[in-house]
């Protein structure tokens, strides 16, 4: 069901504008409409509200965000946070700006320096790691390295796939140094070759320019490592890494101590600024004249009194709330908000698969709550599977209680498990034919027909198609209601004509095949003759093709029987295969595995087909969608 909405106009003195907005924001019931768009300029010359605070708030938000992101997050006491929020929120704009600037001034330099130092230290540790790796790679070449004064020693790391470049380097060095150089290459690992070159320092610039132009990875070690044996260098690197890590820990401690002291206030200030920004962003919806300000929007009828009271308490009779008398077209633009009983609530989650309903449309979620579990139960229909699905749903709902979407899905599974158990009882199924084989349960007989799905294939098919007829007719009936709500006579005629024509076809077919008494044949012909002109009036000659489409929709419900049969056959295979294996343990394991697979499939496939039957077969007969969800102007709930 959709909640009833009322359109309201709030008019107050212009000088109280910011306070009116604050009260509305904290009451949190108004879905804003753009008042300057909705009120005709001929009625009243309204100007769109623009606020001078927007840039201030954005700049402060950037400043506070910068500081808070530097500090490690600290757990805050929610009550204390709420208390500070309430105190600071109602400060004058100037005082709030001063407060934020003061906090920023106190923290900005310290946090910026600490953050920069931390970042430098992280880079230093990363560089030291890289040096260590390089030196360990070239360590085996140490003995071949001559340490000569006035000579340049360069280490190049070359990937094996570019091995050819070593020849090029040799040729170039020969030219640059006039053949006065040494070049040693050695394989360091499976992918890398280290090449060490030694030549006179006066050729260094020309050589490095060449190396740069060829994009070769040259290892430049810091000067303090030069001229030392590699073992000593590695010890030095180890010592420097330890120092850098110790210093980084000390910086982290300082940041943690600052966070301990300031995080609460900073997080509250950030939240206030975010909320103020949202308020300001909404200002474009408000209008004003020389002396008054106006706010327009939608309020759920049950919150209308609370909204008016909140304004009256603060402003007395200086602010007036007027309930607007709106046309049907206006109401078609009203936002939608579900208000369903607890058992229907989880199915609102499935409604997310389609666009939200328009305000004047019939909300399909209660119908979904009835037929979805029914279809699911018809398809799965097994006491054992129903119990497993029920247990799985309960455990998962408890385990992941903080995940809203999963909780909704599990609630749907729990609801669906009940018809599954019920139909399992009717079909006499407990883990397939296990219950029947063991003599625990037997299929129910109705009018001499056994409801065993393997035997009653044709009756089940007829039942599935009959359910299809009812469900599609329900869709067409709701379509008539929607068409009446928007006063669309042609749609009423088309939907009514379709019901009549399909009923006629069923009666004619039934009477002709002997399934129905022959006396119904004339009634069927009359229904068809009445239906066809109505369809042509409502949907044009092409509307007649829709008759075939609707017949296809109805036949599509055969899946209720077909998918159920696939499920029961797989369950029987699990039992038969399990029983056929000579060793009990292997047989039981095999049966459990196959039943598990079947249950997983049973949770997924029937859900998908059930939702498909609704969205494609039934909703297409009445549902348009394209409405707007009710999003009140208020502080959004935060999860962190």
């Amino acid at each position, binding site marked *: 069901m959709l909640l009833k909405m009322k359109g309201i106009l709030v008019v107050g003195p212009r000088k109280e504008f910011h306070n009116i907005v604050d009260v509305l924001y904290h009451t949190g019931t108004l879905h804003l409409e753009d008042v300057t768009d909705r009120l005709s300029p001929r009625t009243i010359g309204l100007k769109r509200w623009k606020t001078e605070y927007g840039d201030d708030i954005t700049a402060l938000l950037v400043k506070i965000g910068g500081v808070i992101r530097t500090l490690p997050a600290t757990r805050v006491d929610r009550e204390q946070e709420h208390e500070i929020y309430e105190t600071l929120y109602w400060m004058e704009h100037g005082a709030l700006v001063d407060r934020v600037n003061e906090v920023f001034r106190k923290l900005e330099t310290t946090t910026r320096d600490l953050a920069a130092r931390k970042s430098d230290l992280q880079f230093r540790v990363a560089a030291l790691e890289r040096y260590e790796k390089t030196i360990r790679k070239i360590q085996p070449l140490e003995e071949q390295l001559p340490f000569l004064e006035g000579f340049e020693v360069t280490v190049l790391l070359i990937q094996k796939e570019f091995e050819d470049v070593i020849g090029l380097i040799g040729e170039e060095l020969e030219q640059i140094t006039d053949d006065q150089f040494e070049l040693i290459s050695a394989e360091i690992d499976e992918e890398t070759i280290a090449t060490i070159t030694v030549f006179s320092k006066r050729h260094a610039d020309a050589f490095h320019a060449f190396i740069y132009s060829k994009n070769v990875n040259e290892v430049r070690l810091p000067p303090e490592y030069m001229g030392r044996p590699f073992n000593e260098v590695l010890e030095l690197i180890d010592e420097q890494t330890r120092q850098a890590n110790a210093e980084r820990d000390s910086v982290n401690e300082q940041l943690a101590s600052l966070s301990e002291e300031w995080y609460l206030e900073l997080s509250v200030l950030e939240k206030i600024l975010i909320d103020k920004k949202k308020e300001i962003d909404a200002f474009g919806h408000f209008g004003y004249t020389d002396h008054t300000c106006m706010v327009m929007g939608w309020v759920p009828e049950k919150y209308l009194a609370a909204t008016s009271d909140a304004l009256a308490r603060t402003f007395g009779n200086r602010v007036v709330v007027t309930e607007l008398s709106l046309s049907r077209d206006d109401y078609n633009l009203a936002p939608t908000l579900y208000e369903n009983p607890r058992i229907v609530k989880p199915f609102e989650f499935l409604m997310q698969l389609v666009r939200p309903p328009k305000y004047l449309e019939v909300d399909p979620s209660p119908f979904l709550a009835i037929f979805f579990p029914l279809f699911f139960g018809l398809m799965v229909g097994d006491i054992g599977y129903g119990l497993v699905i029920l247990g799985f749903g309960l455990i998962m709902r408890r385990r992941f209680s903080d995940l809203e979407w999963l909780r909704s899905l599990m609630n749907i599974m729990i609801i669906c498990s009940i018809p599954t158990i019920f139909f399992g009882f009717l079909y006499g199924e407990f883990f397939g034919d296990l219950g029947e084989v063991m003599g625990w349960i037997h299929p129910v007989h109705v009018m001499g027909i056994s409801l065993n799905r393997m035997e009653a*294939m044709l009756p089940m098919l007829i039942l599935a198609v009959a359910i299809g007829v009812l469900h599609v007719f329900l869709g067409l009936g709701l379509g008539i209601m929607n068409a009446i709500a928007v006063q669309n006579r042609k749609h009423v005629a088309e939907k009514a004509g379709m019901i009549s024509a399909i009923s006629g076809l069923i009666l004619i077919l039934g009477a002709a095949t002997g399934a129905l008494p022959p006396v119904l044949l004339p009634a069927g012909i009359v229904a068809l003759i009445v239906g066809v002109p109505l369809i042509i009036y409502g949907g044009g000659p092409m509307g007649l093709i829709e008759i075939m489409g609707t017949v296809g929709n109805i036949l*599509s419900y055969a899946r209720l029987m*077909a998918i159920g049969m696939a499920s029961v056959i797989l369950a029987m295979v699990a039992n038969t295969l399990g029983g056929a294996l000579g060793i009990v343990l292997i047989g039981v394991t095999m049966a459990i595995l196959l039943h598990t697979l079947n249950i997983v499939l049973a949770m997924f496939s029937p859900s998908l087909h059930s939702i498909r039957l609704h969205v494609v077969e039934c909703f297409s007969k009445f549902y348009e969608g394209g409405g707007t969800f009710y999003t009140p102007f208020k502080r959004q709930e935060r999860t962190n």
Partner: protein
Amino acid sequence: MVDTGVALGAALAISVSAISTAWAQSRIGAAGAGTIAENPELTGAVIILEAIPETMVILGFVVAAMILVL
């Protein structure tokens, strides 16, 4: 014993419709994967679209069952 013609008819009814469904679903699946990559909000719609061609194989199954049972 089921007549060969009956068995063949039932086999054709289910196999041709199954192959058709598989072909349609492969096309829809490929396009759907692209759609979801571009806009994950359309996941629900793509899942429903993916299930639409299954009507063919279900009707094929029904026809096969009717050939065998009736």
